[in-house]
Protein backbone atom coordinates (compact mmCIF):
# COMPACT_ATOMS: atom_id res chain seq x y z
CA UNK A 1 0.00 0.00 0.00
CA UNK A 2 2.71 2.43 1.06
CA UNK A 3 4.59 1.58 -2.07
CA UNK A 4 1.62 2.59 -4.12
CA UNK A 5 1.11 5.80 -2.20
CA UNK A 6 4.77 6.68 -2.67
CA UNK A 7 4.78 5.80 -6.34
CA UNK A 8 4.31 8.73 -8.68
CA UNK A 9 1.79 9.70 -11.26
CA UNK A 10 2.60 12.53 -13.66
CA UNK A 11 5.31 13.77 -11.33
CA UNK A 12 3.45 13.77 -8.02
CA UNK A 13 2.95 11.11 -5.42
CA UNK A 14 -0.38 9.27 -5.34
CA UNK A 15 -0.66 10.18 -1.68
CA UNK A 16 -0.49 13.86 -2.64
CA UNK A 17 -3.26 13.37 -5.16
CA UNK A 18 -5.48 11.53 -2.69
CA UNK A 19 -4.91 14.15 0.00
CA UNK A 20 -5.93 16.82 -2.48
CA UNK A 21 -9.15 14.99 -3.30
CA UNK A 22 -9.83 14.63 0.40
CA UNK A 23 -9.24 18.34 0.96
CA UNK A 24 -11.61 19.25 -1.88
CA UNK A 25 -14.31 17.02 -0.48
CA UNK A 26 -13.70 18.49 2.97
CA UNK A 27 -14.10 22.07 1.73
CA UNK A 28 -17.12 21.35 -0.45
CA UNK A 29 -18.79 19.14 2.18
CA UNK A 30 -18.43 21.43 5.16
CA UNK A 31 -18.80 24.53 3.04
CA UNK A 32 -22.10 23.22 1.71
CA UNK A 33 -23.33 22.19 5.13
CA UNK A 34 -22.54 25.45 6.89
CA UNK A 35 -23.37 27.50 3.80
CA UNK A 36 -26.78 25.83 3.54
CA UNK A 37 -27.46 26.64 7.18
CA UNK A 38 -26.85 30.35 6.64
CA UNK A 39 -28.21 30.36 3.10
CA UNK A 40 -31.47 28.79 4.20
CA UNK A 41 -31.89 31.30 7.00
CA UNK A 42 -31.32 34.15 4.56
CA UNK A 43 -33.66 32.57 2.00
CA UNK A 44 -36.41 32.09 4.58
CA UNK A 45 -36.06 35.70 5.70
CA UNK A 46 -36.34 36.84 2.08
CA UNK A 47 -39.40 34.69 1.36
CA UNK A 48 -41.25 35.36 4.60
CA UNK A 49 -40.69 39.11 4.74
CA UNK A 50 -41.23 39.92 1.09
CA UNK A 51 -44.22 41.87 -0.13
CA UNK A 52 -47.28 39.60 0.29
CA UNK A 53 -45.13 37.35 2.49
CA UNK A 54 -46.28 35.60 5.64
CA UNK A 55 -44.67 38.18 7.94
CA UNK A 56 -45.87 41.72 7.38
CA UNK A 57 -45.11 45.04 8.98
CA UNK A 58 -42.40 47.64 9.20
CA UNK A 59 -39.78 45.42 10.85
CA UNK A 60 -40.30 42.83 8.10
CA UNK A 61 -39.83 45.43 5.39
CA UNK A 62 -36.58 46.64 6.93
CA UNK A 63 -35.28 43.11 7.46
CA UNK A 64 -36.07 42.25 3.86
CA UNK A 65 -34.27 45.31 2.54
CA UNK A 66 -31.18 44.63 4.68
CA UNK A 67 -30.89 40.95 3.74
CA UNK A 68 -31.63 41.69 0.11
CA UNK A 69 -28.86 44.28 -0.10
CA UNK A 70 -26.43 42.06 1.84
CA UNK A 71 -27.04 39.17 -0.56
CA UNK A 72 -26.61 41.39 -3.61
CA UNK A 73 -23.44 43.03 -2.31
CA UNK A 74 -21.66 39.80 -1.40
CA UNK A 75 -22.73 38.20 -4.65
CA UNK A 76 -21.31 41.05 -6.68
CA UNK A 77 -17.82 40.69 -5.16
CA UNK A 78 -15.64 38.26 -7.15
CA UNK A 79 -14.52 35.37 -4.98
CA UNK A 80 -10.77 36.07 -5.23
CA UNK A 81 -11.30 39.58 -3.93
CA UNK A 82 -13.56 38.37 -1.13
CA UNK A 83 -10.96 35.77 -0.24
CA UNK A 84 -8.19 38.31 0.18
CA UNK A 85 -10.18 41.10 1.80
CA UNK A 86 -11.65 38.99 4.56
CA UNK A 87 -8.36 37.45 5.63
CA UNK A 88 -8.40 39.41 8.91
CA UNK A 89 -11.84 38.03 9.65
CA UNK A 90 -10.66 34.54 8.81
CA UNK A 91 -7.76 34.92 11.20
CA UNK A 92 -10.12 36.19 13.88
CA UNK A 93 -12.42 33.19 13.57
CA UNK A 94 -9.96 30.39 12.85
CA UNK A 95 -6.74 31.76 14.30
CA UNK A 96 -5.03 31.21 10.95
CA UNK A 97 -5.55 31.91 7.27
CA UNK A 98 -3.85 28.72 6.14
CA UNK A 99 -5.40 25.28 5.70
CA UNK A 100 -8.63 23.77 4.47
CA UNK A 101 -10.48 24.72 7.65
CA UNK A 102 -9.47 28.38 7.37
CA UNK A 103 -10.60 28.32 3.74
CA UNK A 104 -14.09 27.47 4.94
CA UNK A 105 -14.62 31.02 6.20
CA UNK A 106 -14.44 32.75 2.81
CA UNK A 107 -16.15 29.78 1.15
CA UNK A 108 -19.16 29.96 3.47
CA UNK A 109 -19.29 33.73 3.26
CA UNK A 110 -19.23 33.48 -0.52
CA UNK A 111 -21.61 30.58 -1.02
CA UNK A 112 -24.34 31.39 1.51
CA UNK A 113 -25.79 34.41 -0.33
CA UNK A 114 -25.58 32.42 -3.56
CA UNK A 115 -27.44 29.52 -1.93
CA UNK A 116 -29.85 32.04 -0.41
CA UNK A 117 -30.91 33.21 -3.88
CA UNK A 118 -31.22 29.66 -5.21
CA UNK A 119 -33.18 28.50 -2.17
CA UNK A 120 -35.35 31.62 -2.27
CA UNK A 121 -36.40 30.67 -5.80
CA UNK A 122 -37.16 27.13 -4.65
CA UNK A 123 -39.21 28.29 -1.68
CA UNK A 124 -41.18 30.64 -3.90
CA UNK A 125 -42.35 27.62 -5.90
CA UNK A 126 -44.64 26.78 -3.01
CA UNK A 127 -48.08 27.89 -4.18
CA UNK A 128 -49.60 30.82 -2.29
CA UNK A 129 -52.71 28.65 -1.90
CA UNK A 130 -50.82 26.18 0.31
CA UNK A 131 -49.63 29.00 2.55
CA UNK A 132 -53.16 30.37 2.67
CA UNK A 133 -54.49 26.96 3.69
CA UNK A 134 -51.81 26.76 6.38
CA UNK A 135 -52.77 30.16 7.73
CA UNK A 136 -56.46 29.27 7.64
CA UNK A 137 -55.62 26.23 9.81
CA UNK A 138 -54.05 28.52 12.37
CA UNK A 139 -50.44 27.56 11.66
CA UNK A 140 -47.86 30.00 13.05
CA UNK A 141 -44.82 31.06 11.06
CA UNK A 142 -42.61 28.31 12.44
CA UNK A 143 -45.23 25.70 11.58
CA UNK A 144 -45.74 27.14 8.11
CA UNK A 145 -42.02 26.72 7.47
CA UNK A 146 -41.80 23.25 8.94
CA UNK A 147 -44.97 21.61 7.69
CA UNK A 148 -45.71 23.43 4.45
CA UNK A 149 -42.97 25.59 2.94
CA UNK A 150 -40.05 23.19 3.40
CA UNK A 151 -41.71 19.83 2.63
CA UNK A 152 -43.42 21.30 -0.45
CA UNK A 153 -40.17 22.60 -1.94
CA UNK A 154 -37.62 20.05 -0.69
CA UNK A 155 -37.06 18.47 -4.10
CA UNK A 156 -36.43 21.82 -5.69
CA UNK A 157 -34.18 22.89 -2.83
CA UNK A 158 -32.03 19.79 -3.31
CA UNK A 159 -31.50 20.78 -6.94
CA UNK A 160 -30.60 24.29 -5.81
CA UNK A 161 -28.06 22.85 -3.38
CA UNK A 162 -26.64 20.70 -6.17
CA UNK A 163 -26.01 23.79 -8.24
CA UNK A 164 -24.57 25.46 -5.14
CA UNK A 165 -22.24 22.54 -4.45
CA UNK A 166 -20.81 22.76 -7.94
CA UNK A 167 -20.27 26.50 -7.50
CA UNK A 168 -18.56 25.70 -4.22
CA UNK A 169 -16.24 23.22 -5.90
CA UNK A 170 -15.18 25.94 -8.33
CA UNK A 171 -14.60 28.43 -5.55
CA UNK A 172 -12.69 25.87 -3.48
CA UNK A 173 -10.09 25.68 -6.25
CA UNK A 174 -9.15 29.27 -5.54
CA UNK A 175 -9.53 28.95 -1.79
CA UNK A 176 -7.11 26.06 -1.98
CA UNK A 177 -4.65 28.24 -3.81
CA UNK A 178 -4.27 30.47 -0.78
CA UNK A 179 -3.48 27.61 1.56
CA UNK A 180 -6.33 25.19 1.69
CA UNK A 181 -5.07 22.57 -0.73
CA UNK A 182 -7.50 20.55 -2.78
CA UNK A 183 -7.61 19.40 -6.37
CA UNK A 184 -7.92 22.90 -7.72
CA UNK A 185 -4.76 23.92 -5.89
CA UNK A 186 -2.97 20.92 -7.37
CA UNK A 187 -4.05 21.95 -10.84
CA UNK A 188 -2.74 25.47 -10.36
CA UNK A 189 0.50 24.86 -8.45
CA UNK A 190 1.74 21.62 -9.98
CA UNK A 191 -0.13 21.55 -13.24
CA UNK A 192 -0.28 25.14 -14.44
CA UNK A 193 2.75 26.78 -12.80
CA UNK A 194 5.12 23.88 -13.46
CA UNK A 195 3.60 23.39 -16.89
CA UNK A 196 2.87 19.74 -16.14
CA UNK A 197 0.19 19.33 -18.76
CA UNK A 198 -0.63 15.65 -18.15
CA UNK A 199 -1.17 16.36 -14.45
CA UNK A 200 -3.29 19.37 -15.29
CA UNK A 201 -5.48 17.23 -17.53
CA UNK A 202 -5.73 14.54 -14.87
CA UNK A 203 -6.84 17.00 -12.20
CA UNK A 204 -9.36 18.58 -14.54
CA UNK A 205 -10.75 15.14 -15.24
CA UNK A 206 -11.03 14.56 -11.51
CA UNK A 207 -12.93 17.85 -11.11
CA UNK A 208 -15.27 16.91 -13.94
CA UNK A 209 -15.93 13.57 -12.25
CA UNK A 210 -16.68 15.41 -8.99
CA UNK A 211 -19.18 17.66 -10.75
CA UNK A 212 -20.85 14.73 -12.49
CA UNK A 213 -21.09 12.87 -9.22
CA UNK A 214 -22.63 15.81 -7.36
CA UNK A 215 -25.09 16.42 -10.19
CA UNK A 216 -26.04 12.77 -10.33
CA UNK A 217 -26.55 12.40 -6.59
CA UNK A 218 -28.47 15.68 -6.32
CA UNK A 219 -30.70 14.81 -9.26
CA UNK A 220 -31.44 11.33 -7.92
CA UNK A 221 -32.27 12.60 -4.43
CA UNK A 222 -34.48 15.35 -5.82
CA UNK A 223 -36.37 12.88 -8.00
CA UNK A 224 -36.88 10.62 -5.02
CA UNK A 225 -38.26 13.49 -2.96
CA UNK A 226 -40.63 14.48 -5.72
CA UNK A 227 -41.64 10.91 -6.47
CA UNK A 228 -45.33 11.33 -5.68
CA UNK A 229 -46.00 14.72 -7.16
Amino acid at each position, binding site marked *: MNDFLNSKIFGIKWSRLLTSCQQSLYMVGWGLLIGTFFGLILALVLVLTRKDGVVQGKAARILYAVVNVYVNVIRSVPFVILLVTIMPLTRLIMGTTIGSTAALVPLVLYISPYLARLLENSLLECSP*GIIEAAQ*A*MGANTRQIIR*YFLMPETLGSMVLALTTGAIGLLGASAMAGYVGGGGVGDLTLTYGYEKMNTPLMILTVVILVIFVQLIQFLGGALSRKLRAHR
Partner: protein
Amino acid sequence: MIRIEHATKTFRGKKTEVHALRDVSIHVRKGEIYGIVGFSGAGKSTLIRLVNRLETPDEGTVEVSGQRLDSLKGKTLSALRRKIGMVFQQFNLLEGKTVYHNVAIPLILEHRSPAEIEKRVTEVLEFVELSDKRNAYVSQLSGGQKQRVGIARALATSPEILLCDEATSALDPQTTESILKLLKRVNQEMGITILLITHQMQVIQMICDRVAVMEQGRVVEEGTVLEVFGQPKEDVTKRFVRTVINDQVPETFYDTIRAENRHYRLEQLKFIGDSVNEPVIANLCRRAGLEVNIIGANISQMQGSMMSVFILQLIGDTDTIGEAERYIDASGALRQRLFIDWDSRTITEIPAGKGNEG
Protein backbone atom coordinates in the same frame (compact mmCIF):
# COMPACT_ATOMS: atom_id res chain seq x y z
CA MET B 1 -72.72 33.19 14.36
CA ILE B 2 -70.97 35.39 11.81
CA ARG B 3 -71.73 39.08 11.74
CA ILE B 4 -70.05 41.41 9.31
CA GLU B 5 -71.06 45.05 9.62
CA HIS B 6 -70.29 47.82 7.15
CA ALA B 7 -67.09 46.19 5.94
CA THR B 8 -65.04 48.19 3.47
CA LYS B 9 -61.84 47.05 1.79
CA THR B 10 -59.83 48.84 -0.85
CA PHE B 11 -56.73 47.40 -2.47
CA ARG B 12 -54.35 50.17 -3.41
CA GLY B 13 -51.70 49.63 -6.01
CA LYS B 14 -49.24 52.23 -7.30
CA LYS B 15 -51.74 53.69 -9.71
CA THR B 16 -54.85 51.60 -9.23
CA GLU B 17 -57.49 51.38 -6.55
CA VAL B 18 -59.79 48.39 -6.33
CA HIS B 19 -62.82 48.74 -4.13
CA ALA B 20 -63.21 45.06 -3.30
CA LEU B 21 -65.82 45.66 -0.57
CA ARG B 22 -68.04 48.70 -0.19
CA ASP B 23 -70.05 48.83 3.01
CA VAL B 24 -70.97 45.15 3.14
CA SER B 25 -73.06 43.74 5.97
CA ILE B 26 -74.12 40.13 6.31
CA HIS B 27 -75.34 38.03 9.17
CA VAL B 28 -74.99 34.25 9.08
CA ARG B 29 -77.08 32.34 11.62
CA LYS B 30 -75.92 29.32 13.53
CA GLY B 31 -76.62 26.06 11.72
CA GLU B 32 -77.52 27.46 8.33
CA ILE B 33 -75.90 27.26 4.93
CA TYR B 34 -75.41 30.78 3.70
CA GLY B 35 -74.38 31.35 0.12
CA ILE B 36 -72.88 34.37 -1.54
CA VAL B 37 -73.15 34.48 -5.31
CA GLY B 38 -71.58 36.93 -7.70
CA PHE B 39 -69.55 37.15 -10.85
CA SER B 40 -65.77 36.93 -10.74
CA GLY B 41 -64.24 40.00 -9.13
CA ALA B 42 -67.38 40.90 -7.17
CA GLY B 43 -65.46 40.72 -3.89
CA LYS B 44 -66.69 37.35 -2.62
CA SER B 45 -63.29 35.92 -1.72
CA THR B 46 -62.30 39.11 0.04
CA LEU B 47 -65.52 38.95 2.05
CA ILE B 48 -65.19 35.31 3.09
CA ARG B 49 -61.55 35.84 4.04
CA LEU B 50 -62.62 38.47 6.57
CA VAL B 51 -64.20 35.71 8.61
CA ASN B 52 -60.94 33.92 9.42
CA ARG B 53 -58.91 37.10 9.26
CA LEU B 54 -56.92 36.18 6.18
CA GLU B 55 -58.02 39.69 5.24
CA THR B 56 -58.69 42.65 7.50
CA PRO B 57 -61.35 45.25 6.69
CA ASP B 58 -60.33 48.90 6.29
CA GLU B 59 -63.52 49.84 8.04
CA GLY B 60 -66.35 47.94 9.67
CA THR B 61 -66.42 45.05 12.10
CA VAL B 62 -66.36 41.28 11.94
CA GLU B 63 -67.76 39.16 14.73
CA VAL B 64 -67.59 35.37 14.97
CA SER B 65 -69.49 33.55 17.74
CA GLY B 66 -69.89 36.87 19.53
CA GLN B 67 -66.16 37.59 19.40
CA ARG B 68 -64.86 40.72 17.69
CA LEU B 69 -61.85 39.93 15.53
CA ASP B 70 -60.22 43.38 15.46
CA SER B 71 -57.56 42.78 18.06
CA LEU B 72 -56.87 39.09 17.54
CA LYS B 73 -53.20 38.23 17.14
CA GLY B 74 -50.85 35.28 17.55
CA LYS B 75 -52.28 32.53 19.73
CA THR B 76 -55.82 33.88 20.00
CA LEU B 77 -55.97 34.27 16.23
CA SER B 78 -54.76 30.68 15.78
CA ALA B 79 -57.41 29.53 18.23
CA LEU B 80 -60.13 31.29 16.24
CA ARG B 81 -58.88 29.80 12.98
CA ARG B 82 -59.03 26.29 14.43
CA LYS B 83 -62.75 26.81 15.00
CA ILE B 84 -63.16 27.70 11.33
CA GLY B 85 -62.42 25.20 8.57
CA MET B 86 -61.77 26.38 5.04
CA VAL B 87 -62.14 24.64 1.69
CA PHE B 88 -60.61 26.05 -1.49
CA GLN B 89 -61.34 25.91 -5.20
CA GLN B 90 -57.83 24.64 -5.98
CA PHE B 91 -57.89 22.28 -2.96
CA ASN B 92 -54.51 23.58 -1.71
CA LEU B 93 -53.37 20.16 -0.53
CA LEU B 94 -49.83 18.88 -0.15
CA GLU B 95 -49.82 16.96 -3.43
CA GLY B 96 -46.75 14.86 -2.68
CA LYS B 97 -48.08 13.61 0.63
CA THR B 98 -50.61 10.95 1.51
CA VAL B 99 -54.29 11.58 2.14
CA TYR B 100 -53.71 10.61 5.76
CA HIS B 101 -50.93 13.13 6.23
CA ASN B 102 -52.97 15.93 4.68
CA VAL B 103 -55.91 15.33 6.97
CA ALA B 104 -53.63 14.90 9.99
CA ILE B 105 -51.79 18.19 9.50
CA PRO B 106 -54.23 20.48 11.36
CA LEU B 107 -54.11 18.04 14.28
CA ILE B 108 -50.32 17.89 14.19
CA LEU B 109 -50.31 21.68 14.39
CA GLU B 110 -52.36 21.39 17.59
CA HIS B 111 -49.83 18.95 19.07
CA ARG B 112 -52.42 16.19 19.47
CA SER B 113 -51.16 12.75 20.43
CA PRO B 114 -50.55 10.23 17.62
CA ALA B 115 -53.36 8.02 18.94
CA GLU B 116 -55.81 10.92 18.90
CA ILE B 117 -54.72 11.92 15.42
CA GLU B 118 -55.12 8.38 14.15
CA LYS B 119 -58.62 8.18 15.60
CA ARG B 120 -59.85 11.52 14.31
CA VAL B 121 -58.37 11.11 10.82
CA THR B 122 -60.02 7.69 10.54
CA GLU B 123 -63.34 9.24 11.58
CA VAL B 124 -63.34 12.12 9.12
CA LEU B 125 -62.05 9.99 6.26
CA GLU B 126 -64.96 7.68 6.87
CA PHE B 127 -67.34 10.63 6.88
CA VAL B 128 -66.12 11.83 3.49
CA GLU B 129 -66.09 8.24 2.19
CA LEU B 130 -62.38 8.07 1.48
CA SER B 131 -61.27 5.45 3.99
CA ASP B 132 -59.89 3.29 1.20
CA LYS B 133 -57.69 6.11 -0.10
CA ARG B 134 -56.06 6.72 3.25
CA ASN B 135 -52.56 5.82 2.09
CA ALA B 136 -52.87 7.09 -1.46
CA TYR B 137 -50.87 10.12 -2.55
CA VAL B 138 -52.99 13.19 -3.25
CA SER B 139 -51.47 13.48 -6.73
CA GLN B 140 -53.11 10.15 -7.60
CA LEU B 141 -56.63 11.34 -6.80
CA SER B 142 -59.37 12.80 -8.99
CA GLY B 143 -60.61 16.36 -8.47
CA GLY B 144 -63.66 15.23 -6.51
CA GLN B 145 -61.56 13.00 -4.29
CA LYS B 146 -59.12 15.84 -3.69
CA GLN B 147 -61.95 18.09 -2.59
CA ARG B 148 -63.13 15.37 -0.22
CA VAL B 149 -59.66 15.37 1.29
CA GLY B 150 -59.89 19.17 1.51
CA ILE B 151 -63.18 18.89 3.35
CA ALA B 152 -61.87 16.14 5.63
CA ARG B 153 -58.87 18.31 6.47
CA ALA B 154 -61.16 21.24 7.27
CA LEU B 155 -63.30 19.02 9.51
CA ALA B 156 -60.40 17.40 11.36
CA THR B 157 -60.34 19.94 14.17
CA SER B 158 -64.15 19.77 14.62
CA PRO B 159 -64.80 23.38 13.63
CA GLU B 160 -68.05 25.26 14.22
CA ILE B 161 -67.90 27.02 10.89
CA LEU B 162 -66.89 25.87 7.42
CA LEU B 163 -65.90 28.42 4.80
CA CYS B 164 -66.03 27.29 1.18
CA ASP B 165 -64.38 29.49 -1.46
CA GLU B 166 -65.69 28.19 -4.79
CA ALA B 167 -65.34 24.63 -3.48
CA THR B 168 -66.97 23.10 -6.54
CA SER B 169 -65.90 25.49 -9.28
CA ALA B 170 -63.04 23.28 -10.48
CA LEU B 171 -65.25 20.19 -10.72
CA ASP B 172 -67.52 18.70 -13.35
CA PRO B 173 -71.31 18.86 -12.78
CA GLN B 174 -71.64 15.31 -11.47
CA THR B 175 -68.76 15.67 -9.02
CA THR B 176 -70.11 19.07 -8.00
CA GLU B 177 -73.36 17.43 -7.03
CA SER B 178 -71.69 14.79 -4.89
CA ILE B 179 -69.55 17.40 -3.12
CA LEU B 180 -72.64 19.53 -2.47
CA LYS B 181 -74.39 16.53 -0.97
CA LEU B 182 -71.40 16.01 1.26
CA LEU B 183 -71.52 19.64 2.38
CA LYS B 184 -75.21 19.26 3.15
CA ARG B 185 -74.34 16.26 5.34
CA VAL B 186 -71.62 18.27 7.07
CA ASN B 187 -74.27 20.85 7.86
CA GLN B 188 -77.01 18.48 8.96
CA GLU B 189 -75.11 15.67 10.67
CA MET B 190 -72.34 17.68 12.26
CA GLY B 191 -74.35 20.84 12.82
CA ILE B 192 -71.65 22.97 11.21
CA THR B 193 -72.59 26.43 9.95
CA ILE B 194 -71.47 26.85 6.34
CA LEU B 195 -70.64 30.07 4.56
CA LEU B 196 -69.93 29.46 0.91
CA ILE B 197 -69.20 31.63 -2.06
CA THR B 198 -69.74 30.66 -5.66
CA HIS B 199 -70.45 31.99 -9.10
CA GLN B 200 -72.72 29.03 -9.81
CA MET B 201 -76.38 29.52 -9.00
CA GLN B 202 -76.93 25.72 -8.96
CA VAL B 203 -74.81 25.56 -5.83
CA ILE B 204 -77.06 28.07 -4.10
CA GLN B 205 -80.17 26.31 -5.36
CA MET B 206 -79.03 22.88 -4.22
CA ILE B 207 -77.89 23.47 -0.67
CA CYS B 208 -78.27 27.01 0.60
CA ASP B 209 -80.86 28.30 3.05
CA ARG B 210 -80.15 31.95 2.50
CA VAL B 211 -78.30 33.82 -0.19
CA ALA B 212 -76.67 37.19 -0.76
CA VAL B 213 -75.95 38.49 -4.23
CA MET B 214 -72.79 40.54 -4.67
CA GLU B 215 -71.90 42.96 -7.41
CA GLN B 216 -68.92 45.30 -7.53
CA GLY B 217 -68.15 45.02 -3.86
CA ARG B 218 -71.72 45.42 -2.65
CA VAL B 219 -74.40 43.05 -1.44
CA VAL B 220 -77.23 44.07 -3.72
CA GLU B 221 -79.84 41.55 -2.64
CA GLU B 222 -80.34 39.15 0.21
CA GLY B 223 -82.98 36.72 1.44
CA THR B 224 -84.01 33.10 1.69
CA VAL B 225 -83.31 31.08 -1.40
CA LEU B 226 -87.02 30.80 -2.18
CA GLU B 227 -87.50 34.56 -1.89
CA VAL B 228 -84.54 35.43 -4.05
CA PHE B 229 -85.26 32.78 -6.68
CA GLY B 230 -88.97 33.52 -6.67
CA GLN B 231 -88.84 37.30 -6.82
CA PRO B 232 -85.40 38.48 -7.84
CA LYS B 233 -85.29 42.27 -7.80
CA GLU B 234 -81.92 43.32 -9.18
CA ASP B 235 -80.80 42.67 -12.74
CA VAL B 236 -77.77 40.66 -11.64
CA THR B 237 -79.97 38.48 -9.51
CA LYS B 238 -82.33 37.89 -12.41
CA ARG B 239 -79.41 36.93 -14.58
CA PHE B 240 -78.19 34.47 -11.97
CA VAL B 241 -81.64 32.98 -11.42
CA ARG B 242 -81.99 32.53 -15.17
CA THR B 243 -78.89 30.34 -15.24
CA VAL B 244 -80.83 27.67 -13.36
CA ILE B 245 -84.50 28.47 -13.87
CA ASN B 246 -85.60 29.02 -17.40
CA ASP B 247 -88.40 31.58 -17.20
CA GLN B 248 -87.97 32.80 -20.74
CA VAL B 249 -90.09 32.24 -23.80
CA PRO B 250 -88.29 29.59 -25.84
CA GLU B 251 -86.99 31.12 -29.10
CA THR B 252 -88.69 28.46 -31.16
CA PHE B 253 -92.08 29.63 -29.92
CA TYR B 254 -91.63 33.20 -31.09
CA ASP B 255 -93.02 32.50 -34.54
CA THR B 256 -95.99 30.54 -33.19
CA ILE B 257 -96.81 33.40 -30.86
CA ARG B 258 -96.48 35.97 -33.56
CA ALA B 259 -98.67 33.97 -35.93
CA GLU B 260 -101.57 34.26 -33.50
CA ASN B 261 -103.86 36.96 -34.88
CA ARG B 262 -106.49 36.88 -32.17
CA HIS B 263 -106.12 39.11 -29.11
CA TYR B 264 -103.69 37.60 -26.61
CA ARG B 265 -101.39 38.36 -23.72
CA LEU B 266 -98.28 36.60 -22.51
CA GLU B 267 -98.16 35.92 -18.81
CA GLN B 268 -95.50 34.40 -16.60
CA LEU B 269 -96.81 32.59 -13.51
CA LYS B 270 -94.71 31.53 -10.56
CA PHE B 271 -95.80 29.13 -7.87
CA ILE B 272 -93.52 29.10 -4.86
CA GLY B 273 -93.65 26.38 -2.22
CA ASP B 274 -97.22 25.63 -1.16
CA SER B 275 -98.39 29.22 -1.31
CA VAL B 276 -101.04 28.30 -3.89
CA ASN B 277 -103.66 25.70 -3.02
CA GLU B 278 -105.79 25.56 -6.15
CA PRO B 279 -105.18 24.21 -9.62
CA VAL B 280 -104.81 27.66 -11.17
CA ILE B 281 -103.95 26.62 -14.70
CA ALA B 282 -106.65 23.96 -14.87
CA ASN B 283 -109.17 26.52 -13.67
CA LEU B 284 -107.98 29.03 -16.26
CA CYS B 285 -108.54 26.52 -19.01
CA ARG B 286 -112.14 26.09 -17.89
CA ARG B 287 -112.95 29.79 -18.17
CA ALA B 288 -115.43 30.61 -20.92
CA GLY B 289 -113.98 32.55 -23.85
CA LEU B 290 -110.40 31.93 -22.76
CA GLU B 291 -107.86 29.76 -24.50
CA VAL B 292 -104.66 28.85 -22.71
CA ASN B 293 -101.40 27.87 -24.42
CA ILE B 294 -98.58 26.71 -22.19
CA ILE B 295 -95.43 27.82 -23.96
CA GLY B 296 -92.91 27.37 -21.21
CA ALA B 297 -92.69 25.42 -17.98
CA ASN B 298 -89.98 24.84 -15.45
CA ILE B 299 -90.13 23.12 -12.10
CA SER B 300 -87.26 23.33 -9.68
CA GLN B 301 -86.59 22.19 -6.19
CA MET B 302 -84.83 24.17 -3.48
CA GLN B 303 -84.70 24.30 0.31
CA GLY B 304 -86.90 21.19 0.30
CA SER B 305 -89.57 23.13 -1.54
CA MET B 306 -90.78 23.50 -5.12
CA MET B 307 -90.90 26.44 -7.43
CA SER B 308 -92.62 26.23 -10.76
CA VAL B 309 -92.65 28.78 -13.54
CA PHE B 310 -95.16 28.72 -16.41
CA ILE B 311 -95.37 30.95 -19.41
CA LEU B 312 -98.88 31.15 -20.75
CA GLN B 313 -100.37 32.68 -23.82
CA LEU B 314 -103.89 33.74 -22.86
CA ILE B 315 -106.12 34.18 -25.86
CA GLY B 316 -109.45 35.99 -25.53
CA ASP B 317 -110.95 39.46 -25.46
CA THR B 318 -109.59 42.17 -23.15
CA ASP B 319 -112.27 41.71 -20.48
CA THR B 320 -111.92 37.95 -20.29
CA ILE B 321 -108.15 38.19 -20.01
CA GLY B 322 -108.48 40.97 -17.41
CA GLU B 323 -110.73 38.75 -15.32
CA ALA B 324 -108.33 35.84 -15.68
CA GLU B 325 -105.48 38.05 -14.48
CA ARG B 326 -107.44 39.09 -11.43
CA TYR B 327 -108.18 35.45 -10.72
CA ILE B 328 -104.48 34.55 -10.94
CA ASP B 329 -103.47 37.42 -8.65
CA ALA B 330 -106.09 36.40 -6.09
CA SER B 331 -104.90 32.78 -6.10
CA GLY B 332 -101.52 33.76 -4.67
CA ALA B 333 -99.50 32.92 -7.77
CA LEU B 334 -96.91 35.52 -8.82
CA ARG B 335 -97.78 36.96 -12.18
CA GLN B 336 -95.82 39.08 -14.65
CA ARG B 337 -96.98 40.20 -18.04
CA LEU B 338 -94.41 39.71 -20.79
CA PHE B 339 -93.92 41.79 -23.89
CA ILE B 340 -91.83 40.69 -26.81
CA ASP B 341 -90.11 43.36 -28.81
CA TRP B 342 -90.20 41.75 -32.22
CA ASP B 343 -87.37 43.81 -33.66
CA SER B 344 -84.79 42.93 -31.06
CA ARG B 345 -86.53 39.71 -30.02
CA THR B 346 -86.19 40.66 -26.35
CA ILE B 347 -88.70 40.41 -23.57
CA THR B 348 -89.75 42.99 -21.04
CA GLU B 349 -91.64 42.04 -17.92
CA ILE B 350 -94.30 44.08 -16.23
CA PRO B 351 -95.10 42.79 -12.74
CA ALA B 352 -98.75 42.50 -11.74
CA GLY B 353 -100.23 45.73 -10.46
CA LYS B 354 -97.97 47.98 -12.50
CA GLY B 355 -99.48 49.40 -15.67
CA ASN B 356 -101.98 46.57 -15.84
CA GLU B 357 -103.77 47.97 -18.85
CA GLY B 358 -100.94 47.62 -21.39
